[in-house]
């Protein structure tokens, strides 16, 4: 993919001009150009292998406080004109939005991150043959761990994108990015049972994905999974690897901290701002400028620049994430967290970090009297978001720990528990680990109490 800011700028200005002609009083246009490719592994072969090109033009037109929007995947000016005309036309028939005050004014952007910091040439130039070589390396590396490795599954992918946001109040925001990912689930079989192990890595530079380490780690987890047993439902200590912690984060972020969830009475943190809800060992913030994050965007879906936002400080709930509309309802400033999905939008943090401690997995296991070690969770969901009650299942490696030692691997377990309860106490927080297996930067944790509600044997 060749970046072409001038083309995006030309098209975006064309949209603003057309919208003005059709009678819009305020207009926002977002244009994204994306090239992505993904090689999918199953049964130790390349099973699916795809490449996609997208060029998407999203127009939000206001006539006074009446709003209309269109999202089109077209490139020619005639089609874009038609889409803009439609956006203005439907704005004119739309009821007034009493919460709307204005689109964001012209913004200035930090020079802490340059465009060059956001992309990798190696990712832009990645090829199908390179993905196939990575896939082969993953297969060979996993199979070398143990003869009982039955199948390597997963995906190797890279994406390159550029984005421009303009509005007719003078806002002009442009960024670009590259992203590479490998995620593997390795299955092992010994004739009596099938086990699984998982690992992943995310890098801005596709060529730096640590394929061999990911494959070996996933394979070792699978091999260490033989001899699985059930344990009874109940309260256990739990040692959570980073990906397991990151699994909770999405739900805590969306259901707890999004101003939209808060304003919709869904948030379990309603009336809890400034209150200590979590362990003093828990600190959570959002910071797109942190260079340790591999995938960063320097402005949000409205072109509002990102800034560091404290969300939990020493267990105290500090701030919600806002975009322009939710901020105007609460008479505060946007925190730069708008995200858009096909014409719908909401505020949500996308550059999360959880403060690290000085512990590690070995110490956490050694400190556990009666608990479980979890690689990551599957199919989590909110059971009662207003109380922060979530559920989910262990997957790709969980082990029972007794008196500081791993005893045996566990069959699938289900938890159902409330985040304000199970995060009210944290025994240990670890250092960040080498593999970046979650899109947030998250350390491992040991919690003193976690509620297992069932298993695949009822």
């Amino acid at each position, binding site marked *: 993919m060749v970046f072409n800011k001038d083309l995006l700028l030309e098209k975006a200005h064309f949209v603003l001009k057309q919208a003005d002609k059709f009678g819009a009083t305020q207009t926002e246009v977002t244009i994204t150009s994306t090239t992505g490719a993904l090689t999918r592994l199953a049964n130790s072969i390349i099973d699916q292998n795809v490449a996609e090109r997208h060029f998407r033009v999203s127009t939000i037109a206001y006539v006074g406080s009446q709003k209309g929007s269109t999202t089109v995947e077209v490139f020619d000016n005639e089609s874009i004109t038609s889409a803009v005309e439609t956006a203005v036309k439907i704005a004119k028939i739309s009821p007034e939005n009493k919460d709307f005050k204005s689109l964001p004014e012209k913004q200035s952007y930090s020079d802490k991150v340059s465009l060059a910091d956001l992309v990798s040439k190696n990712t832009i130039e990645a090829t199908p043959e390179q993905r196939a070589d990575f896939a082969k390396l993953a297969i060979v590396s996993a199979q070398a761990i143990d003869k009982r490795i039955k199948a390597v599954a997963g995906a190797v992918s890279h994406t390159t994108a550029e984005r421009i946001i303009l509005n007719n109040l003078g806002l002009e925001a442009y960024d670009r990015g590259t992203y590479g990912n490998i995620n593997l689930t390795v299955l092992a079989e010994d004739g009596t049972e099938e086990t699984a192990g998982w690992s992943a890595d995310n890098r801005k530079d596709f060529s730096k994905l640590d394929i061999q380490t990911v494959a070996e780690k996933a394979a070792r987890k699978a091999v260490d999974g033989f001899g699985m047993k059930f344990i009874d439902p109940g309260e256990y200590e739990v040692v959570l690897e980073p990906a397991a912690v990151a699994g909770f984060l999405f739900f805590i972020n969306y259901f707890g901290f999004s101003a939209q969830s808060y304003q919709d*009475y869904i948030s379990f943190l309603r009336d809890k701002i400034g209150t200590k809800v979590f362990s003093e060992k828990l600190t959570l913030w959002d910071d797109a400028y942190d260079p340790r994050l591999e995938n960063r965007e320097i402005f949000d879906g409205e072109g509002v620049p990102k800034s560091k936002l404290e969300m939990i400080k020493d267990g105290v709930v500090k701030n919600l994430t806002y975009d322009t509309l939710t901020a105007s309802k609460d008479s505060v400033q946007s925190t730069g967290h708008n995200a858009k999905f*096909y014409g719908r939008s909401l505020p949500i943090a996308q550059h999360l970090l959880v403060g690290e401690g000085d512990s590690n997995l070995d110490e956490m296991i050694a400190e556990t009297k009666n608990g479980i070690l979890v690689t990551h969770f599957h199919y989590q969901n909110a*059971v009662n978001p207003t109380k922060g009650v979530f559920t989910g299942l262990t997957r790709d490696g969980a082990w029972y720990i007794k008196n500081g030692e791993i005893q045996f691997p566990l069959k699938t377990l289900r938890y159902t528990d409330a985040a304000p309860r199970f995060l009210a106490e944290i025994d240990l927080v670890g250092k960040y680990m080498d593999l970046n297996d979650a899109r947030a930067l998250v350390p491992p944790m040991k919690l003193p109490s976690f509620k297992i509600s069932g298993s695949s044997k009822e």
Partner: protein
Amino acid sequence: MRDLTEKALEVCSKEGATYADIRIVTIKDEDISIKNGTIQTLNIANIKGFGIRTISNGGLGFAGSYDVSAKEIGRMAKLAVRIAKASGATRKKPIVFVDEKPVEDSYKTPIKKDPFSIPSEEKIELLMEADKRLRAYNPDEIKMSRADYRGHQEDKVFASSEGAYITQQITFCGGGISCTAITQGEPPQTRSFPGSFRGNFSTKGYDYFESLKLLENADKTADEAIALTGAKHCPTEKTVLLLDGHQLMLQIHESCGHPTELDRVLGTEAAFAGTSFMTPEKLGKLMYGSEHVNMTSDCTLPGGLGTYGYDDEGVKAKRVDLVKNGLFVGYQSSRETAAIIGLKESSAGMRADNPQKLPLVRMTNINLEPGDWKRDEIIADTKKGILMSTNKSWSIDDKRLNFQFGTEIAWEIVDGEIGQILKNPTYTGITPEFWGGMDAHSKDDWKVLGTPNCGKGQPGQVMYVGHGCGTARFNNVRVGVMQEATSTIGVQ
């Protein structure tokens, strides 16, 4: 259009492909959402693009783009073959498809009123009024109201190197209302109509949306939301559970739909959505449920959200048995996956949600076939139990065995009659044990319900699927699992 499809197939052939197909697709989508008297979303999407799938060197390659020009099609055809060759290098056996007679045909969803011929103003007016009625029912207690509409239309051309050339127009629409009640000292409760997550959808015209009668159902919806705030909690016990269609559909979706997708069974989703306990050696042997359980995959069902003329590899729509009298007998499949386990034909289950995405085995209309009962007869025949309706939360393990669902509302059943409302209902179970406990299913309230929110695949895709079902009864089910899990910690 034929010149473009021929160009793609010709380039693929020249580059060494042994098979190729191309889809050129235009999608229109209208999305309207009203919240608390304010329009949140009024968006019209228009997506155009193509996707080329080829086999070369025994492997599969796919490339798609938004630019439907001869030049870009030629470029992406070459890329698709290059990707296929790279894929083939890792395969132990070349990809083989089951035979499918190539046809030239066309199909159009039969509709009375084209949803895109109805002015947006008319839809907004109806939604605004429904939203207003929800709050007007009790302005002090209904704090949130919502009304949604969505219309969708796809025009597709499919052509293959085997000689198929198929044009289709698929249309669906639908919507719904929901509201949240808050009373003094009680957590919020939400109630929706006709279903949660923005309502219900059907491959029918705008007349289907009108038939939902959102205005007429606003008062009842608001009343139930308020009643829920003061209701008793769902008890924690093992009991007789009745599910009506608005929850039963998701039970079918998660515990029969996904585990009978043959690509998933064969490991394609092993690293993402998971695998399946319904493995090929169990075909024709596993008792999936009781003798009353009959499940089908049927993309011919009129009005079903998973209804079409041909799938995205040119296979004509058909009905396939998945479970017959409780016995696991069939899969949802593609031409490739059917060949792998020796089936004679595909179930016509391949679809992509976007022109630039690779078709995958997707649910069509996965149905629990009608039983012999009437809904009222099942209730009258139940001495003690709980009736649950309208999905609120869902979770199931990677082999599709352990599931846990929450619903918006439940009612006690005592001595054959519906009793008081219960709040925060949840239930859990193991798939074959749960379906093994089904002893009744109705026919009088049997209908095909639809959800446009089924996620699968890497890169991710979201598909629209249907589920035909009525009201069913299950014995010895563990309910109230949320209360059980949180009762000791003061969370209600």
